[in-house]
Structures are given as structure tokens and as C-alpha cells.
């Protein structure tokens, strides 16, 4: 934890219902200054609702929510001066250019950074005069982040910043976010890419159905559930789960995305036993491999389903 001093975000027992649906149901967490905190979970887990309450866009039903130590419902205007917001939807005034949009948004704040500096920060110099509708997906996301940085905020909210981007654009956005962290910004981000959370976030909270299921650093979360490593191969009917679960060293067997995963305390023993069993059934396990347990495995273990289902 890189936390120091008073937390920039404090959430305690937050609840928010839409009709009968409890979108957020008793969520509590804190984010320290300079920390990158990730809210992870599938669509509908309550991440976006939580983040929008923190941004002052929605009112909580109950619970206490503070940003910079101030209550969000009572101090929204002064909080909004000091936060930067990037929402999932990005199309803002499609016919305005990058420069025009940054100038416009800057004018909403008491203090704002020079547009040129912002454009350089997100590497959009060549597209400064392009209309936002003509930008590529990755460029639009970078513009959306530049807009979130316009007031030089202390705390930045990023809601699924890389959804829908190709791997290269995602990498370059990760570099951008890491740069923000190095400059001491506090960041609260949501994602449903475990890999992204592992790469960027100091701490993560895993959410599902409006609850936080588990919270901690990524190694903590993995270590807490899996002392094991994972042996994986393409699922085949000839190797039934009941038998696989009994193989040497295996603590747990699971299936995800057409692959069978065996969590094992003794990888060598497990592979030996697996190959012997396969030989018996005269099949060869395809795409056999070994890896460390990941956040995906943690999520699967917590909820019984894969993250992107």
C-alpha cells in the first residue's frame, strides 16, 4: 500500500437501489493519496454506480461517501473543481476539434492547464485540429483522458478506460496511466480486465452483485486463495472432472473458456498423474501448460464464473 495521510476517498456502507434492484449493497473502501485503486467485476456488478456517486453524478441512498474528506452530496461543487472524470461514453460534441474541446472544458474550471500541454501529455499533437468524431477509438480514449486532466486534478476517475481498444492502443493507454501515477495523482479506476488491474492497480476490490467480495493488492488476493500453480489444457470428455480432482497434488479442478484448470501444490506430480490418466484413456491433453494463478482464477473461485460472462 502506498497510502499516506488522510484518504482521498472514503466509502462506508454505501447502498444504492434502482427500484427493487440493489445496484450497490453495503460497499466500504478507502483510497489513499497517490494510490491507484481498481474496482473489478463483470458488467452490472455496481462499479459504475459506485464511481458515479463518488463523482457527484448520483445521490447515495445510504452510507457515507467522502472525497478529500468532504461529503459528496453536500460539497459537490468544490469537489468537482478538484477531480477529473473519464466516463465510459466518450462522444462529446463530435464536430468540435480536440483543441476546441479542451479549451471549452478548461473554461468550466477555476484553474486549468494550457491546452497545448494537455495535448502533448496524451500524445495527440498531430490530431489537435481534427474533429473528435474523426479520431480512432484509442485517440478518443486519450482525448477523454486529456479532458479528465484539464483542471490538473488531484484525483482521477477512469471508468473502463481501455474497453474496446486493440492491444496496442491498450498498452499505450496503460503507459499514460502509469505516467499519471508517477506524477502523484490518485486514481480510482474500474475495469473488467484482470490483466489491466494487475498491471496498473496497487490495490483492487472485486465486486459482484453490488458487494465487495475481496480487497487487497493483486499478489495478496492471489496468495490468499491459491498457494498453488495452475495446470491447464483443452477440455476433453475423456478426462472427466471427477477423476481429475483426485489426481496427485490437485486441490481444485475448474473449467473456463473451454479449458480445464487444475490448481496444484505439486505441479510435477500432477502432470505425471495427468499424463498417466490420459495414456489410460488414450488421449493426449492438448495445449497443456503451467502458470501462476491470476486474478481471473481468483474471480472464478469467488463467483463460480468467468469475469467476462
Amino acid at each position, binding site marked *: 500500500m502506498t497510502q499516506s495521510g488522510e484518504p482521498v476517498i472514503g466509502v462506508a456502507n454505501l447502498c444504492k437501489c434502482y427500484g427493487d434492484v440493489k445496484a450497490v449493497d453495503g460497499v466500504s473502501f478507502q483510497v489513499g493519496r497517490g494510490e491507484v485503486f481498481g474496482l473489478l467485476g463483470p458488467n452490472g456488478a455496481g462499479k459504475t454506480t459506485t464511481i458515479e456517486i463518488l463523482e457527484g453524478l448520483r445521490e447515495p441512498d445510504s452510507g457515507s461517501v467522502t472525497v478529500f474528506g468532504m461529503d459528496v452530496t453536500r460539497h459537490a461543487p468544490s469537489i468537482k473543481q478538484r477531480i477529473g*472524470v473519464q*466516463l465510459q*461514453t466518450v462522444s*462529446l460534441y463530435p464536430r468540435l476539434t480536440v483543441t*476546441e474541446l479542451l479549451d471549452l472544458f478548461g*473554461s*468550466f474550471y477555476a484553474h486549468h492547464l494550457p491546452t497545448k500541454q494537455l495535448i502533448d501529455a496524451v500524445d495527440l499533437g498531430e490530431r489537435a485540429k481534427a*474533429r473528435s468524431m474523426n479520431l480512432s477509438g484509442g485517440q478518443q480514449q486519450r482525448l477523454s483522458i486529456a479532458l479528465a486532466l484539464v483542471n490538473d486534478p488531484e484525483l482521477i476517475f477512469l471508468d473502463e478506460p481501455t474497453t474496446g481498444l486493440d492491444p496496442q492502443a491498450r498498452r499505450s493507454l496503460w503507459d499514460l496511466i502509469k505516467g499519471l501515477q508517477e506524477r502523484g495523482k490518485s486514481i480510482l479506476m474500474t475495469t473488467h480486465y484482470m490483466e489491466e488491474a494487475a498491471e496498473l492497480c496497487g490495490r483492487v476490490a472485486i465486486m459482484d452483485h453490488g458487494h465487495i467480495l475481496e480487497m487487497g493488492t493483486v499478489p495478496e488476493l492471489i496468495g490468499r486463495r491459491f498457494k498453488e500453480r495452475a495446470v491447464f489444457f483443452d477440455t476433453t470428455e475423456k478426462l472427466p472432472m471427477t477423476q481429475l480432482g483426485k489426481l496427485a497434488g490437485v486441490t481444485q479442478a475448474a473449467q473456463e473458456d473451454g479449458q480445464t484448470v487444475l490448481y496444484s501444490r505439486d505441479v510435477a506430480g500432477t502432470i505425471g498423474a495427468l499424463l498417466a490418466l490420459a495414456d489410460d484413456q488414450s488421449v493426449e491433453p492438448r495445449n497443456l501448460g503451467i502458470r501462476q494463478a491470476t486474478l481471473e482464477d481468483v474471480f472464478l473461485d469467488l463467483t463460480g464464473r468467468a469475469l467476462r460472462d
Partner: protein
Amino acid sequence: MNTLLRLTVANIRSLVRDRAALFWTFFFPVMFVFLFGWIFGGSSDSKVAIGFVDQDNTQVSMGLQQSFSQVTLLTIQTGSLEAEKAAMQHGDISAIVVVPSGTGAAVAAKSATSIQLYIDPSSSQVSQVVEQIADQIANRFNLQLAGGSSVVGIQQMTLQSTNISTVAYLVPSILAMALMQLGVFAAIPLVQQREKGILKRIGATPLARWKLVGSNVLLRLLVAIVDAVVILGIGLVFFNIQIVGSLLEAAGLVLLGAGAFLAIGFALASFLKTEEQATGVVQVVQMPMMFLSGIFFSFDFLPGFLQTVARFLPLTYLADALRQVMVNGTQVAPLGVDVAVLTGWLVVCLGIAARSFRWE
């Protein structure tokens, strides 16, 4: 620079860079003016509308009516003297022929009598033509029935006509239509911006929401003024319409009208969720209003039930008010009533929008 102004500039840029929006906001009404101008512009030259008032109801008066209606240059409408006088004062007809009661009896007795011809000397061309026609008909009549002795004479009367041409009638109507459309259509970008999350994104900045709404209103009022200048300009330059009222009053009405229809647009946007929905509903609102308000026809010519419908539509009152101030046209209601009705729509719809508008 003030944020309200900056937002308005952003809105103007968005509009100017959107060709489809430009077409509907500016070129569509301009097209209407030219289209109607060309269709109706020539009509006052080729045909003259006159009123025929038969107070006699004899063979003689009917014969006279037939003679007038056989003249290809004329179109005839009949009615009471009062109604026809009113029509002439409104500029719907250019002259009136009156056959007084007792004419038939006088002709039978071969004693001298006269029919009355109301003309407006100020529109000399038309009145000369009508005078000549009436003379010819009277002469022919005297030849046939009275053997040449002049029994039927013509008594000339003058009546001031506003001499309003069809185009002059239509220009304020088209302006009213343009204002109605720019107001009601404002619902679409608003719903669009909400659907795309733009309203929400701006809600996460310290910007006061009234400025966002205010910039939208400013843009539309600006467009209303441009529309008014362009449409009136075309009317003045190409179709020789004359503006009788004060320009200041006209400008006030343009802003009031645009405001009332904007309020209607905002109220609509409060209940619509998707852009497709908005596009559909806006058409359902504006198309019938365009045709049922009778803006393209004189109100008096509308069938009774349509008049009733039209009396419920705000567009009727805006068109009426603009007509009264600009070309002194047919009056549907006193100007004060027009203004009151439009103000009522403005206040009620703004209230609805303020209560029900959703930002996301």
C-alpha cells in the same frame, strides 16, 4: 470569455459543421418561401378575385352573376355585403359587385337603376380592369334586355383594401413554421446529448447546468433571428411584400414564438429516451401542426372542424401575430390574445420541462 458564451460558440460550431442540420434549419424554410412564391406569386396578375353580392335574387341578378363568372380573368365568390367587405379589407378579394334588391323589378319596368362596384382606387391596375369588365357587362346587358337604353348603370364605391398578396400572406406563415420547427426540433439534440452521456459528462464538471440549457436557448434564438432576416429578406427582395408594422414588434414576436416552441421542445425532450424516439415524436408533433394550423391558407377558408383544431395549436397564434404585425393580414384573434396564448405555452411547457427533465 464567459463559459455561457463559450458553450454557445461550441453549439454554433456544431450546427454550422453539420450539413443536415443546416439544411433543415435554414434551407428548408427558404425553399418553402421560393416554392410558394413561385406557385402563388403570379396568381394576382393572371386572375382577379372579386366578391359578388346578390341582394335581389331575381332572374336579372342571377344573369348578371353568370356574366361575371364567365369572364375568365375573374374568380367569383359570393356572400353577404358585410362578409365580402371584410374579405376585401383583408385583401382576399380585390373588388365587390353588389346587385341591390329591386334591380330586377326596375329592369322589368325599364326604369333606370344601378349596380354598385366597390373598388380600391389605390390599386389602380386591378380596379381599372374590374371597372372595364363591369362596364362591358352592363352595356351588353342593356343591349340585350333594354334594347340599348341604359337601364343598368354602375355606381362606383371605394373601399380601402389592404391589397395583401398570397405571398405576403405566406411569408409570415413560413417564418412561423420555421420558428416552430427550430423549437420543436431542439428536442432531438438534447435527447441525443443525454443518450450519448454528454449531459452526464458535463454534469461531472463544476459547470452550472442552467448554463448548458442557456447556451442551447441562446443558439436557437440566434437561429430564429437569422431565419427571420433571411425569410423576410427573400419576401422583400423577390416577392415585393411590404412590412406595415414595426420591426421591433416583429422581432419581439419572433423571440417570443421561438421561446414558446423551444419550451415545447424541451418539454418533449423530458419524456423521450432515445434519439429514434425523439425523431419520430417530433415529426408527429410538427407535421400535423404545420398543416392543421392553416398557416398556408386563410383561416376563414378552413372547414369548421379544422378551425376548431387550429384554435388549439400554438402555431396558429404565432402565424396570426406575425401576419398582423408584418402584413396586416387576416386576423384570427386580437394581437393581445396571440401574445397571451404563446406566453401561456411558454410558461406551461417550461414548467413541465423544469419538473420532468432528466439529465441521464
